């Protein structure tokens, strides 16, 4: 079906659930394999933690859940657990013959979604699908604040039937979906308050997401907008709102990735300094600007000039300029940093997110925070400070609806590659940011890796900045793009905190993964709906595009918070 899918996702859930079993005991491996097969799951086994990680990284979208023994010879099971959670964001179940409370607690603390005691009964394994399901719902919820889609609803219904093949994929739900375009308008109104809406959510299955990404790429980041994406996707039951929201999340996701990456790298010290947690929100853009000035690295490419983005409001202008600067700076630097360094490096130096710069923005809108972890945190541009940067590396893409609205940030189609993702998140609040911006980000695939790094710190700012900048910045973006496609990405990504992805997976993330993600087609790898495979995947250009479009739809800018574009 979709690229990257190893097994038929179309199977009636939970049948066909792809399980990776990790245990050094050969006897248990065989037993578990047999039991899981009896549950109609698709099983892969391995006897070493490292091997497991390799498998997971190779096929980002290849597994739905991981079951691992706590005591592995080559790596502490808890460590593996952490890695899987971070890199792939898959649910992990721990196993052990030791049921001591402290161990179990440690498992939970490290993120295990369950802890099974050996000997394991078949009935315990039968139900592991619930963890996958739960995660999806959770992510979908985060994503679709107001999709009002029956997606979740359907899923819920489906779960009732459990064995009956609950269809997870949205594609399967078209018949149910009735809200089609009608909803477009309707939706706008409807989800004015995402957080309160618990309507059925659109489940962004990998397929759907891929369509989305393809559409975004097709449109071009510069011009991406929910409406266009929607049209291209040709999914009858999907609404513009859904797309916009998804776009936002995508951006956030990218940003989060960057952020996490950055954070990780920053542990060395870079990031934190650059990005004051609080400021992440609007300030990013400005800060970056600051950096930019110092760096003036890529400035050239960006047509920084005076106001590349002629934002309608002065603020915007500034932002734009900042954005550009930031972008260029960050990009340039990042690129350099990235290329030279490993994901772990903290690129940030240049892009120090100067949250302050954005101060004036004051977004009132929602801030799209890319970090998925944070449930719809809405930061306003101005407020950013609160934004918990730390919150799970959220790249605070605070999209300020309000602030941006001041200036018609038509960040349209700027090909702000990097920014896109970033901006998307933040942009969401400002619909004006056009898709172009998003598009920009999308393009740079390879550079993505670079982006990430740099992004981490500046991501947020840039993203937001970018978004706010009206289309005018387009030129900037384009320039930026031209000059550093990757940089752009970085920028965008950075904002999103993508960098942090880089951090983690130096090996794979950077170039390959990034490529991946940026590639439309690669979106799947991201595990969009199913498992958030390494973040890099999120950098799919589609994401960026989404952001742009999202920007356009202020209304749509529901918090994408966690940027998990999970189906």
């Amino acid at each position, binding site marked *: 079906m979709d690229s990257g899918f190893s097994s038929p996702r179309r199977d009636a859930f939970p049948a066909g659930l792809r399980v990776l079993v990790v245990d*050094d*005991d*050969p*006897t*248990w491996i*065989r*037993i578990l394999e*047999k*039991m899981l097969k*009896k549950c109609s799951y698709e099983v892969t086994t391995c006897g070493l933690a490292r091997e497991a990680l390799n498998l997971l990284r190779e096929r980002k979208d290849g597994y739905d859940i991981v079951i691992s*023994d706590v*005591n592995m010879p080559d790596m502490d099971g808890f460590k593996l657990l952490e890695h899987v959670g971070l890199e792939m964001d898959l649910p992990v179940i721990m196993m*052990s*013959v*030791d049921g001591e409370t402290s161990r179990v607690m440690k498992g939970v603390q490290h993120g295990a979604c369950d802890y099974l005691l*050996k*000997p394991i*009964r*078949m009935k315990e394994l039968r139900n592991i699908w619930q963890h996958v399901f739960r995660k999806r719902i959770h992510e979908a919820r985060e994503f679709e604040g107001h999709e009002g889609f029956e997606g979740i609803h359907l899923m819920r219904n489906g779960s009732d039937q459990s064995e009956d093949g609950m269809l997870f994929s949205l594609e399967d739900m078209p018949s149910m979906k009735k809200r089609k375009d009608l909803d477009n308008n309707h939706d706008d109104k409807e989800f004015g308050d995402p957080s309160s809406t618990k309507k059925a959510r659109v489940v962004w299955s990998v397929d759907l997401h891929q369509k989305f990404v393809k559409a975004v790429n097709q449109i071009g980041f510069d011009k991406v907008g929910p409406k266009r994406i929607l049209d291209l996707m040709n999914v009858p039951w999907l609404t513009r709102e859904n797309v916009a929201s998804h776009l936002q999340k995508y951006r956030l996701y990218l940003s989060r990735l960057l952020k996490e990456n950055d954070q990780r790298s920053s542990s060395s010290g870079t990031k934190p300094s650059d990005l004051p947690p609080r400021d992440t929100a609007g300030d990013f853009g400005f800060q970056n600007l600051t950096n930019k000035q110092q760096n003036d690295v890529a400035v050239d490419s960006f047509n920084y000039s005076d106001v590349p983005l002629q934002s309608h409001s002065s603020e915007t202008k500034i932002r734009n300029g900042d954005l550009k600067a930031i972008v260029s700076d960050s990009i340039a630097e990042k690129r350099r940093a990235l290329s030279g360094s490993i994901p772990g490096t903290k690129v940030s130096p240049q892009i120090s997110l100067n949250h302050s710069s954005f101060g004036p923005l004051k977004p009132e809108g929602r801030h799209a925070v890319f970090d998925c972890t944070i449930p719809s945190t809405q930061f306003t541009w101005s407020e950013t400070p609160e934004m918990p940067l730390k919150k799970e590396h959220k790249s605070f893409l605070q999209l300020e609806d309000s602030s941006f609205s001041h200036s018609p940030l038509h960040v349209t189609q700027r090909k702000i590659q990097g920014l896109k993702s970033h901006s998307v998140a933040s942009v969401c609040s400002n619909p004006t940011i056009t898709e172009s911006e998003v598009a920009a980000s999308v393009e740079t695939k390879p550079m993505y890796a670079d982006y990430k790094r740099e992004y981490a710190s500046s991501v947020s700012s840039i993203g937001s900045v970018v978004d706010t900048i009206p289309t005018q910045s387009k030129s900037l973006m384009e320039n930026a793009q031209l000059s550093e496609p990757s940089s752009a990405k970085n920028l965008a990504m950075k904002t999103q905190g993508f960098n942090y992805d880089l951090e983690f997976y130096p090996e794979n993330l950077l170039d390959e993964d990034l490529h991946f993600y940026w590639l439309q087609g690669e979106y799947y790898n991201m595990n969009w709906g199913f498992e958030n495979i390494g973040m890099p995947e999120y950098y799919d250009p589609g994401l960026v595009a989404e952001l742009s479009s999202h920007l356009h739809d202020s209304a749509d800018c529901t918090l994408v918070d966690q940027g998990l574009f999970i189906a």
Partner: protein
Amino acid sequence: MDRNQSHRQLAAMKQSLFDQGYLDEQFIQLEELQDDANPHFAEEIVTLYFRDSSRFISNLDQAMERNPLDFGKLDSIMHQFKGSSSSIGAQKVKAECTLFREYCAAENAEGCMRSFQQLKKEYAVLRKKLETYFQLAK
């Protein structure tokens, strides 16, 4: 006749293994996993277990010869052994593993030695019994 007899014998033996605590519920699980694809699944697993766990026995033998005993290492090996034994439902063996680990925690070398001896005995007895059992089952 023969077949019935051997079936009954088999059932009786199985019952006795359970009654005497050699095996626990996990063994039944193994038998329940048997199907057309793996008609002798339980036997395969038991064979795999005895083959694989022999390394634990030899590691423990070596470690027990050290002086002084490295309780941490002993505990670690025994932990794995216990986990493995739980896979086939080797109840008595498992219980002995637990006891051994308690002695390790208390750094009681004597207790460890005694427990280890007992463990090896239980292990050997179980192996024999299961061999017989599967012979009957054929």
